[in-house]
């Protein structure tokens, strides 16, 4: 359907025989660390989302990713890029005066 990536919430754990790259991202007012993520087409990756302070959101509309990041919790999102490009992500849970600047980029290379 034209989706650039497949995204799905992970089950409790991935099969041990197919270890996947894990990218840890921390959200904290008003930044993501790291704010630039490089992925490769066709290579699965797990985004492990943490919050450093309060509830945040992580959404990359072009990649069909939309997840909440609870304070003190961990959210894991598995994606498989199927097309190269630069895709924006941002916090979509309003978190204060710098919320609008809480953004980042996923760069998918061939």
């Amino acid at each position, binding site marked *: 359907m034209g989706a650039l990536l497949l995204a799905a919430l992970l089950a409790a754990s991935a099969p041990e025989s197919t270890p996947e790259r894990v990218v840890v991202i921390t959200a904290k007012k008003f930044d993501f660390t790291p704010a630039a993520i490089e992925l490769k087409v066709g290579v699965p990756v797990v985004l492990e989302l943490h919050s450093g302070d309060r509830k945040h959101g992580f959404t990359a509309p*072009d990649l069909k990713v939309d997840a909440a990041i609870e304070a003190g919790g961990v959210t894991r999102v598995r994606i498989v890029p199927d097309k190269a490009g630069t895709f*924006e992500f941002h916090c979509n849970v*309003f978190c204060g*005066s710098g919320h609008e600047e809480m*953004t980042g980029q996923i760069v998918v290379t061939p």
Partner: protein
Amino acid sequence: MRDPDGPRLFLAECRQRRSGHRGMTTKTRREFIQLLGVGGAVFASGLAGACSRNIRLPGGEAADDFFFVQLSDTHWGFKGPPNPDAANTLREAVAAVNALPHDPDFVVFTGDLTHTTDDDAERRRRMQEFKGIVGELRVKTHRFMPGEHDASLDRGKAYEENFGATHYSFDHKGVHFAVLDNVSDPAAAIGDAQLDWLHRDLTPIKPDAPIVVFTHRPLFDLYPQWDWATKDGARAIDLLQHWKNVTVFYGHIHQEHHFTTGQIAHHAAKSLIFPLPPPGSQPKRAPVPWDPAHPGRGLGFRDAATDEARANWRLTEHSVERTAMPAAARAY
């Protein structure tokens, strides 16, 4: 084609209004409508003319023609380079509304009345200051709703203390108005309970009756990459599609914007703090830089007037730019 005398005439008429005299520049509403037919843009000196006509509504009852003014995204309390004159912009807008040749029936504020703060006491203080400033409007009927800056950090608690319910409806001269809250949930959802309320609220409304929805965020996916959307806005639109004459007025995106989903028209208003760029026009959603040569450029408000059948709205955009860009009117 723009009238080169528009700004001069507009300001002159404002002065006449303040001094209690109306000169030859004042046009009747009928003359104003006629002007719409001869030019793409018409200046506001003749807006809402002196003649208020009785009209017949679909239900048979008579009602006066009317218009309202929409102010949006005033962000009272904001300080920063995108608007070094932020302490004055709202007051200037209030003065500009008071200087209109004729008073609107009411003024609606489509959210982000105040700029957000983590300090609960400061949030309340900003809301009180805002109320004091808009209390200077000559028109005393005001309709409010929150933006995410007002309500998302405390789920609307301070807003409700100061302004009342975050969603409600009212009727005015044959038009049903519904105010939707898509910001008290910090994830920008309307939510099941409010959608159920909207369904119950609209159920008695006839399918061809005029309905106006006021809200803060766009109900449709204008540009989700910049958070210009409502998480469950499609559910509200699906519900509203059952009525034939629905118009949505909203804010949030700090610029004039017009869009239709099915038969529903969606109109975004300019802000009164700083403009934002057109959706997707640049990598980042950053304010348009302040231009000291044109203070207030890109800021403004609008008025919306009904036609006789309440089927269309004629929108007039008013600038608060110091160089007095004239207002322009278009029919939708």
